[in-house]
């Protein structure tokens, strides 16, 4: 059978995945602290069209289409939006807020729209800084942050950074978890936190739409190619009438 048939089919699958990634970016255009993802492609292995026996080093390789190699998250700074709400925080520059997830693990986020949760601890009510999902925001010592009656923060927010933020795994809810690829978290001493601001998503609509058009066109081209390969098969089939 013609290899082109499989190459174009595989290319269509790849572009479909690309489209999934782009549509997720577009869906998160308004998500606080969202970081856009870009698909990176690679060519697949090459095989020999035919074997020459003359011993000469001739290039007779034919490729087997493309595959999704990686999804790279772009941690470019999003626009800072002024909200004037004292419990909104944005990090200007690299770094993440550390929050304690319900399962006891620490998760990291760029979304600083925090709230206060009043809890009874040891017979006393304490106000703790929490995320929209009710997870404790951690300070530099990895402890939940208590807010005093005046709404002031007596503790410094725990801002951490990673050797390779691109290696973090996204777990939804604007949060990331540490992986082997990201490296261990390190407390970022120089982090610039802005109170009363939120970081908008860094998705650029124009760029996403351009990528979308491109993905769609490549999909279209590949489907044409599939048709052409099919047409060839038809011709070969009808050689003998």
């Amino acid at each position, binding site marked *: 059978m013609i290899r082109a048939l499989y190459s174009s089919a595989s290319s269509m699958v790849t572009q479909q995945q690309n489209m999934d990634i782009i549509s997720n970016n577009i869906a998160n255009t308004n998500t606080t602290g969202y970081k856009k993802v870009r698909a990176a492609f690679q060519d697949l292995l090459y095989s020999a069209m035919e074997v020459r026996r003359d011993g000469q080093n001739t*290039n007779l390789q034919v490729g087997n289409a493309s595959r999704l190699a990686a999804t790279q998250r772009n941690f470019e700074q999003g626009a800072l939006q002024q909200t004037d709400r004292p419990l909104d925080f944005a990090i200007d520059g690299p770094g993440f807020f550390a929050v304690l997830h319900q399962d006891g693990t620490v998760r990291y986020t760029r979304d600083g729209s925090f709230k206060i949760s009043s809890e009874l601890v040891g017979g006393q009510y304490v106000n703790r800084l929490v995320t929209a999902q009710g997870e404790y925001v951690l300070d530099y010592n990895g402890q939940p942050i208590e807010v005093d009656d005046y709404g002031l923060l007596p503790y410094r927010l725990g801002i951490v950074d990673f050797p390779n933020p691109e290696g973090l795994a996204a777990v939804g809810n604007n949060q990331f978890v540490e992986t082997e690829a990201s490296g261990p978290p390190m407390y970022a001493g120089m982090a610039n936190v802005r109170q009363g601001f939120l970081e908008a998503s860094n998705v650029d609509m124009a760029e996403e739409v351009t990528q979308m058009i491109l993905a769609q066109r490549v999909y279209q081209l590949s489907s044409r190619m599939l048709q052409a390969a099919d047409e060839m098969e038809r011709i070969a089939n009808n050689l003998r009438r």
Partner: protein
Amino acid sequence: MTRGLYTAATGMIHQARRLDTVANNIANINTYGYKKDQVVTRSFSDELLLRLNNRQSPSSQPIGTINHGVTVEEVVTSYQQGILQHTGVNTHMALNGPGFFTIITDDGERYTRDGSFMLDSLGYLVTADGWPVAGETGPIYIGTEDFTVDSMGYIFVNDQYVDRLQIVDFEDPQALRKAGHNLFINSDPDNQILDYQGEVMQNYIEGSNVDAVKEMVEMVTATRNYESNAQIIRMIDETLDKTVNEIGRV
């Protein structure tokens, strides 16, 4: 006459191979640093036709030459510059001009034009697959600090010189073979490595150099050529049909 049947068949096989290459080019139209392949066509070697049983001369007499079909001579990779796309990611790099980044893999050195690099958990510059990018003194350590790369490939972390990207250019780039994963392998040990003359651009990525229009034209010609070869076979078949079934019928 039956000779033509086989000649037309080689034509069909050849056009199908051309389409395979076109399909691969189109599949990689979105692949960073991809270089398109082109099939070079060659006819089979000429053979001398001789007239036998000639009464006038004792030996056979040459009439002329004939060849029996077409095949792939070789696949040529076009190293034409791809489009430079600005990504704003500081680990992304593109080469403007000929040359390749050197990548250190478990199987030895590989070369690539795909500059979608990133930092690994230890702070080394690596490819999307995790292979380290070679500097002049081995893998390049960047760490967590801000870094810049100048047009000559010198890397500075906090304005301190760290290393230089090992960018190579080959005297005969056609001796390079594609190894998948956007990597090239040098198949000729005698291939001279030249000094890099181009320009490194940080925050940019080189796209594929595949031109959709050209590939579509290639696709159309390949399918039509395939079709005409099929027509020839059908014609010969019909003629054979007449010879076998009609001549001799009373």
